């Protein structure tokens, strides 16, 4: 079954196609090689986890894929469009129309309601297609299960809820690619699984997602893991024993029930931190 899906995917335009990407930072006299030649292709419908330690270059890959930074060398095709060589304004438009960002620290505007936060990307839309921004924002929030929290401000929401608002904000423009930079970094383990369940659900609906993480557990929810070290990809393979977050949540709940039933728990929670 897996190979069948692969066959149909080969025919579609890749969402991401980077070739020979290098990134060299000039700090004073010395050159820092952040990326030493990276090739990566992500096809529609994939849920890719990029793993690596700090300093491995995974953040640089993320910034380049997110059109926040440009490669020193190499080519980048996003959804079939050349990205390298675009100016600041064109990059901003690409980010607005083709990409959705989810950050580790949620990065919501403080003292701004959930719906205003989600509506924000639509206000920067220059194509003029997104008319009823309010309704679109409302639908995006409903999609992440926050239809009843429209007017809440970030400070009135839990970490998991804030991250879901951020996901709704990333989804509202119907991007070709959702980029998540350590999306579970600030969340406890249960909330992390909840957020991953949401990502898997969205992925099942056909949204291409790329997650940067350093947690192996989180990477196991992806369909493919790309490992980066010293500015190079050292491993790129499909996930063998893929975890399903929704199932894990069920286990978590039943464990909790058992624990509660046994009272003063003899059985330690089965979930790894």
């Amino acid at each position, binding site marked *: 079954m897996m190979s069948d899906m692969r066959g149909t995917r080969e025919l579609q335009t890749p969402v991401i196609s980077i070739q020979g990407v290098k990134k060299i930072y000039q700090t004073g006299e010395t050159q820092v090689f952040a990326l030493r030649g990276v090739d990566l292709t992500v096809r529609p419908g994939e849920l890719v986890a990029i793993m690596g330690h700090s300093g491995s270059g995974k953040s640089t890959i993320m*910034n380049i894929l*997110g059109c*926040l*930074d440009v490669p020193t060398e190499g080519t980048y095709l996003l959804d079939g469009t050349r990205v390298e060589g675009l100016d*600041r*304004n064109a990059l*901003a*438009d690409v*980010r*607005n*129309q083709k990409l959705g*960002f989810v*950050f580790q620290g949620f*990065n*919501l*505007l*403080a*003292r*701004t309601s959930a719906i*205003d936060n989600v509506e*924000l*990307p639509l*206000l*920067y*839309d220059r194509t003029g297609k997104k008319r009823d921004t309010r309704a679109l924002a409302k639908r995006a929030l409903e999609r992440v299960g926050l239809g009843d929290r429209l007017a809440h401000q970030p400070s009135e929401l839990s970490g998991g809820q804030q991250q879901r608002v951020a996901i709704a*904000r990333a989804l509202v*423009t119907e991007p070709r690619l959702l980029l998540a930079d350590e999306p579970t970094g600030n969340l406890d383990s249960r909330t992390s699984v909840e957020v991953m369940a949401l990502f898997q659900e969205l992925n099942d609906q056909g949204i291409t997602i790329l997650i940067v993480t350093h947690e192996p557990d989180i990477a196991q929810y992806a369909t493919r893991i790309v490992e980066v070290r010293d500015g190079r990809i050292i491993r790129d393979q499909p996930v063998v024993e893929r975890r399903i977050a929704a199932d894990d949540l069920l286990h978590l709940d039943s464990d909790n029930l058992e624990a509660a039933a046994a009272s003063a728990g003899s059985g330690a929670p089965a979930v790894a931190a």
Partner: protein
Amino acid sequence: MTQKTLLKLASQSILKNKMRTLLTMLGIVIGVAAVIVMVAVGHGAQARIQDSISSLGTNLIMITPGATQQGGVSQGAGTFNRLTVDDAEKVKREATTLAAVSPVITTRAQVIGGSGNWRTMINGVSPDYLTIRDWNVASGALFTDLDVRSMRKVAVLGATVAKNLFGGADAVGAQIQIGHVPFTVIGVLDAKGQNAMGNDQDDVILMPYTTAQARLSGQTRLGQILASTYSQDDIPAAQDEIRGIMRESHRLGDSMDDDFTIRNQTDIAQAATSATSVMTWLLAAIASVSLVVGGIGIMNIMLVSVTERTREIGIRMAIGARGSDVLTQFLVESVVMSILGGIVGLATGIGGAMLLGHITGWSTATPLSAVALAVGFSAAVGVFFGYYPARKAAALNPIQALRYE
């Protein structure tokens, strides 16, 4: 981004920091209010001067001795006085545009009569004088042309003189001595108040110019000739006509300059108001310094705000805001802030000017030009002082901005 959205964004972030916004706006409020009050007081003073100038008389034309040349050397105005009664009579006879003409002989003399004595100004004039000055007799009557021709020793007292010599008593019919010459008081004038220079216009005695010449001054030259036209529109034509008659009377050749000066009321008014106008704008300029200080306050706060909201700027850029979007957002914020401050300052200024007028009794007037200027200037302050912080915000690198703690 639509303008509505921009305004919404700006008002949102302005409302998020109410106290700070209020304090920042205060600078602009004080600046604009100060400008408005200064201009209002200045304009009030100007209006008062205009009023008192028009109290000189309506459609007034004044002929005074002018500069002459002696052997090619220009002398100062009035050095060689050639104004005579003949000139005045010729002008009155020949001019078609003039309603009234009166020679004026001015001298000072000690006056004794009633219950006291008083030193005052004596004006020898013709009966036309009161028409020209738009002045009336309060009691008694003015002398007539017959009195002038027969050099009768009659006098009409100004209100101040009447008060000082006779107190509250009726002066008409009383005998007074002016410079040891006995006169009969035949009338007392209406009180006219101070003139533009602050001199008491009622401290005067009027008498026939013939009498003044023969009995008091002994001069044949006139201090000035006053005339008035039927209407304001006639003034330019009348001035030309008078000039022609005067040149003929003085037998001036084509190559010779006028040896007299003709001025109308507008000239005098302009001279007086231009001084106060300079004062007004000087005051406004000083007050506008505080507006600039207010602008610097806005710039300061906007710079703090940009630093504080670096992360927000990063988020906005990550989700697709262009540099120009960020620039506009911050610029709109500072302009909204300064215009709001301008409007509040305008209201405060107008209120303050009215209060000041009420307390001090000065007349104040806020001209529309000052209102437009204050609001326009405060908006300009917002743009000028908001631009640098806004550009700083727009030039931020999104990656660094997102990482900013």
